[in-house]
């Protein structure tokens, strides 16, 4: 997994609540058996004026000029600012894959759906929950300041605004460690292989029907 320590980048505001994973990456793109290449189809139905299908040349499709990610001032954004319940709906990891492939490294919002939140951490994409007042202020600043950039410092657990305002955030210690080091979860878990084997052996005795 790609490490995450600090990240400085341009912020793009996606000002709507309950953005679901069907919107982040529509189902027709889930037919791929690869992990990469989803970026051009992130937010496909909002981003393009035509209907997207796998295999299309996305460079030649007509973009929706009203959609925020298509606006000139937000080109190159790597920090996504969202409202509440972002990533609700399906468990498709294609959603964080698409956001990461698009170029995002961090998402700041009032709240996230559980499965999406969890999936982000597996991919070096950092979702950060901030109080509503801080998110409201960031929306105002981003919209009123062309080229508005912030720095996310995971080690210090703080978001640094250019005006010096610091916004602390909470992250699970274990997840933080994994991200800072770019650790592979599976490798970590396999260090407990003996414990897993012992647990399994006991379970086989107590509930043999589970091992039919």
């Amino acid at each position, binding site marked *: 997994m790609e490490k995450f320590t600090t990240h400085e980048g341009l912020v793009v505001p996606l000002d709507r609540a309950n953005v679901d994973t069907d919107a982040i990456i529509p189902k027709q793109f889930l037919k791929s058996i690869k992990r990469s290449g989803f970026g051009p189809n992130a937010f496909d139905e909002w981003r393009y004026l035509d209907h997207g299908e796998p295999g299309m040349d996305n460079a030649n499709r007509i973009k929706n000029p009203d959609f925020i990610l298509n606006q000139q001032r937000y080109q190159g954004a790597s920090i996504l600012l969202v409202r509440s319940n972002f990533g609700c709906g399906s468990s498709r990891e294609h959603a964080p894959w698409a956001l990461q492939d698009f170029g995002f490294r961090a998402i700041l919002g009032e709240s996230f759906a559980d499965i999406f939140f969890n999936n982000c951490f597996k991919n070096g994409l950092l979702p950060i929950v901030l109080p509503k007042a801080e998110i409201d202020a960031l929306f105002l600043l981003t919209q009123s300041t062309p080229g508005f950039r912030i720095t996310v410092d995971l080690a210090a657990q703080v978001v640094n605004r250019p005006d010096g305002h610091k916004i602390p955030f909470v992250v699970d210690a274990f997840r933080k460690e994994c991200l800072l080091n770019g650790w592979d979860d*599976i490798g970590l878990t396999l260090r407990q292989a003996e414990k897993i084997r012992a647990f399994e052996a006991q379970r086989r005795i107590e509930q043999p029907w589970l091992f039919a």
Partner: protein
Amino acid sequence: MSKTLYDKLWENHVVHTEADGTALLYIDRHLVHEVTSPQAFEGLKLAGRKPWRVSSIVATADHNTPTDHWEKGIQDPVSRQQVETLDANIHEVGALAYFPFKDKRQGIVHVIGPEQGATLPGMTVVCGDSHTSTHGAFACLAHGIGTSEVEHVLATQCLLQKKSKTMLVKIEGKVGAGVTAKDIVLALIGKIGTAGGTGYAIEFGGSAIRALSMEGRMTVCNMAIEAGARVGFVAVDETTIEYLKGRTFSPKAGDWEKATAYWRTLVSDADAPFDAVVELDASEIAPQVTWGTSPEMVAGIDANVPAPEDFNDPVKREGVARALEYMGLVPHTPINQIMIDKVFIGSCTNSRIEDLRAAATVAKGRHVAANIKLALVVPGSGLVKHQAEAEGLDKIFLAAGFEWRQPGCSMCLAMNDDRLLPGERCASTSNRNFEGRQGNGGRTHLLSPAMAVAAAIAGHFSDVRELTS
């Protein structure tokens, strides 16, 4: 100290705990389908790892499979490749059971697990699909996972988890005639919102839940994720145990007594503390229909479409305005005057035998309205289809003008050819009414199977209680 059912299920699976409380949970059952597994099998192979316990795996192809003309195979080459990749992966690693495309037991993964007795009380059940919460109906700790976690479970038989808060949803009283499990769960989501359960494990209790069949409980738990909760479950009772008797993977004679004795302990202790309690009066729930692009945008059949001005929160008001525009609806329109184009009866929410029986009861002797372009009935599995045909339900549907299809996820998410065209409006028994969910530009209204048939017959949403009373 008294414990909730969630505490008991959790503690029974903890292998190891990190300093910050992150636990390694043992996984008993791993359900696998074609969409979210190929990258996990590939990752496993690239890392040179072997699956930990293949006898935990039950696999099927469901999301991409066509629901008609099976003799032609899967026409879409991209879909076909995904299904064939699953075939190859399971062929290579093995599984407790695999029901490939065209197998008579193939079907929606959340229908076949319980049907086969592969979902048993007290299990942890995971699948790369958010509707895995369905299995909570059997007092399982069951939830959806992403593909990285699918790989993690394949490699280690465990998942890294933080314990959730607990919520008791207590639904007391008796539902009126024509009101079903689907209406109960939609009413709940309308009350607490699609993020109301975020961070919680929901236990569904109360007399209205106890009165539900296992099929009804599965419908309720299925949509726990639509309330934001990854897991939703119901305590074990005689209904649970009765359902499991004699199923393929249920415990056999020697183990049955021991298993059921354990299962009966899978209830919350009487005075167990919950972090939150939500109460609903079942007798006040009317048949529900969603009007927007989120399952929380829902109302009773006798209500009107709301106006953005009805909401104080500016973000919510904006969301409602956008939803009404997408849905092509005018504020204050009575819901029972909204005309529809298509009807879909199916999905992991409502495609079990009881759902088809309820739908057929309303359809019997009636006919789909002239303005309906397509009315689909898609059974949840080959075995459900077989059972329905044995009961003559297929003939009732066909006589009423419905199409009777092969099992699969179908138009719930439109990964196969069953889909809405832009602007088409659908009465659907599925679980998500998001923009484009049933096809680019399509407009989805969620409701129960009986209400879907009532809408098909009237050509617009209609109160099933007036048809059946």
